[in-house]
């Protein structure tokens, strides 16, 4: 039993079974305190399931909302605590027997994810937008996801005032997965985390109250493609395992850069075999790039964003990107640094096509949600530019960008939920004509978000973009910067198109109404605007945070 074999929580049991009888039993050490954020969220998620089982329907909504919010807040507090305790910097190390890294990037991203989810939860809980049906307030989720759209059972469910309060536990599970994902320090954890946050998202996509057919379609597409991609990921893992004889990042890294101490003869024949390494690495990248939504793995994005219930879209668009990019960063910086030069050109290519492709296709979009989907693709491209920089600044700039981007996204989608007509949300752009005349405030807020997306100075979008491009330039990727600049020029065009539509075109007679939301959504939007402006005007503090957090533990 080689030392390299016994390295992780998972295989400890295996280690025991395979160990010679004389070897002593070693109990796995788990630093629970350092995992508290994850544990809290998972725990409450489970609790939420129990609530579904035992709490009477009437009380469920409030209980669930309370639990979710409490969990997220507590988890965030825990993250802060850990960071304050110096786990982000000095005490950063690998916890849970090598399964989970507790370090700067992990904590920073976890914090981001938690905050984003928190504001997202508010939009989940919003129930003032839809007109009351049968005297009961309703949120944007199906009364009963199982019932066939338009069937009597559905009508009955609506009449009975059912609501799908399961969304909250699902959300929490997803969040838990996302918390682990960027912190995962071995490939198995990575895979499990991926599934843990993907599966709930598949479901969440399917439970829209309006336009249910589209919602289900979105779910199916997302699910099938997601499963497809995770299969690639898994196979990639298998190959890497085959290459390095281990799934621990640290181990693989040592093997990749050849700094491994003693070579197990059993590994000798695969160890040197770079084909395994390269193919495996490429396939794992596939899985991650899919989640990120990079061209050509992006095609699910528009459909899913459009079909999913808008609150879910917002949550997904923001949190998933954060988690996925976190994992991507860790993989590239910790596991495959030796591969940098092999991956660089192709990553360049992907970054470029992602930036340009997303921007160009977005020009002709007519649905606001799809438009934002493509814009998110373009942004993925920008972030990739930072990822490629392969410098500490690169890491911190990406962290910063993710923070800025996620809040803008959640805010933007929150605004989308407000613009409604008889058929629910009026997402077709033509409906948005003249919004600025009818309700200047909402239009102005949305304009702010759009300008942030477009990266206009004095908004967080600009700070982020500047950070990333700067890092890329310093990392010797000036070409990417130029492309990025050009594509953001293209992108600016369609953001501006929306603004023109809202402010300069006369409102239509049958135009949509802007629902007055409850304080919940208001908070979401307010936070979005606040973060946008603060990070635009005085980003220094957060940049410091990001740069402190910009070091991966090995």
């Amino acid at each position, binding site marked *: *039993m*080689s030392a*390299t*074999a016994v390295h*992780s929580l*998972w*295989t400890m*049991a*295996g*280690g025991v*079974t*395979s160990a010679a009888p004389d070897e002593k039993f070693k109990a796995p050490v788990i630093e629970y305190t350092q995992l508290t954020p994850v544990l809290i969220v998972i725990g409450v998620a489970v609790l939420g399931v129990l609530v579904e089982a035992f709490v009477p329907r009437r009380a469920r909504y409030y209980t669930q909302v309370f639990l979710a919010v409490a969990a997220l807040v507590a988890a965030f507090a825990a993250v802060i605590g850990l960071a304050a305790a110096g786990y982000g910097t000095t005490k950063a190390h690998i916890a849970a027997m090598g399964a989970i890294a507790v370090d700067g990037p992990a904590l920073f991203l976890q914090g981001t994810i938690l905050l984003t989810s928190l504001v997202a939860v508010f939009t989940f809980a919003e129930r003032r937008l839809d007109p009351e049906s049968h005297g009961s307030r309703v949120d944007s989720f199906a009364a009963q*996801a*199982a019932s*066939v*759209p338009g069937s009597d059972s559905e009508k009955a469910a609506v009449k009975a005032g059912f609501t799908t309060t399961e969304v909250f536990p699902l959300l929490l599970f997803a969040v838990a997965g996302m918390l682990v994902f960027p912190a995962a320090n071995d490939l*198995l954890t990575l*895979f*499990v985390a991926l*599934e843990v946050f993907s*599966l709930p998202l*598949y*479901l969440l996509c*399917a439970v829209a109250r309006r336009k*249910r*057919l*589209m919602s*289900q*379609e*979105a*779910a*199916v*597409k997302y*699910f*099938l493609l997601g*499963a*497809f991609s995770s*299969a*690639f990921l*898994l*196979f990639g*893992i*298998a*190959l890497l*395992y*085959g290459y390095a*004889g*281990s*799934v621990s990042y640290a181990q693989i890294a040592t093997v990749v850069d050849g700094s491994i101490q003693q070579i*197990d003869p*059993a*590994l000798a*024949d*695969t160890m040197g075999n770079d084909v395994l390494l390269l193919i495996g690495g490429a396939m794992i990248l596939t899985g991650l790039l899919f989640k990120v939504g990079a061209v050509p793995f992006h095609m699910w994005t*528009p*459909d899913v964003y*459009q*079909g999913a219930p808008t609150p879910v879209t917002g949550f997904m668009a923001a949190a998933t990107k954060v988690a996925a990019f976190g994992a991507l960063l860790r993989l590239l910086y910790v596991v495959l640094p030796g591969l940098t030069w092999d991956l660089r050109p192709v990553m360049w290519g992907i970054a470029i096509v992602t930036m340009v492709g997303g921007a160009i296709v977005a020009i002709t979009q007519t649905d606001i949600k*799809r438009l934002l989907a493509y814009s998110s693709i373009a942004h993925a491209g920008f972030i990739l530019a930072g990822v490629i920089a392969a410098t500490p600044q690169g890491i911190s700039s990406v962290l910063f960008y993710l923070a800025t981007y996620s809040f803008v996204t959640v805010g933007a989608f929150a605004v989308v939920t407000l613009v409604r007509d008889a058929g629910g949300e009026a997402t077709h752009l033509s409906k948005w004509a003249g919004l600025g005349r009818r309700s200047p405030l909402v239009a102005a807020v949305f304009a702010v978000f759009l300008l942030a997306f477009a990266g206009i100075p004095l908004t967080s979008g600009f700070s982020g973009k500047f950070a990333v491009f700067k890092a890329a330039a310093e990392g010797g990727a000036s070409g990417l910067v130029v492309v990025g600049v050009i594509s953001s020029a293209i992108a600016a065009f369609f953001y501006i198109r929306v603004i023109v539509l809202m402010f300069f075109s006369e409102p239509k007679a049958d135009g949509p109404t802007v629902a007055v939301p409850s304080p919940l959504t208001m908070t979401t939007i307010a936070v979005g605007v606040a973060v946008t402006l603060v990070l635009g005007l005085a980003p220094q503090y957060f940049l410091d945070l990001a740069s402190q957090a910009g070091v991966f533990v090995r």
Partner: protein
Amino acid sequence: MNPVNYLYLAALLFTIGAAGVLIRRNAIVVFMCVELMLNACNLAFVTFSRMHGNLDGQIIAFFTMVVAAAEVVVGLAIIVSLFRSRHSASVDDASLMKL
């Protein structure tokens, strides 16, 4: 016999599965193909585990099965609901959203 052959088999299975995903229309079948791919992964894991003489691969295989099972639960739920509302499980019929 040479364990490498198992790897070839795994690769073959994976490719077959992928091809199935690309070709077949019926959502269920597509999903089955995905499962096939996962199994291919398992085979690879186990083979490597055997080659390396450590058990990680086998353990991982178990995890994969669990995950796959979970995926089945979710996946079937979604596909069935789609089927019920459209009376068709063809992935090509589900193309309301495009362009």
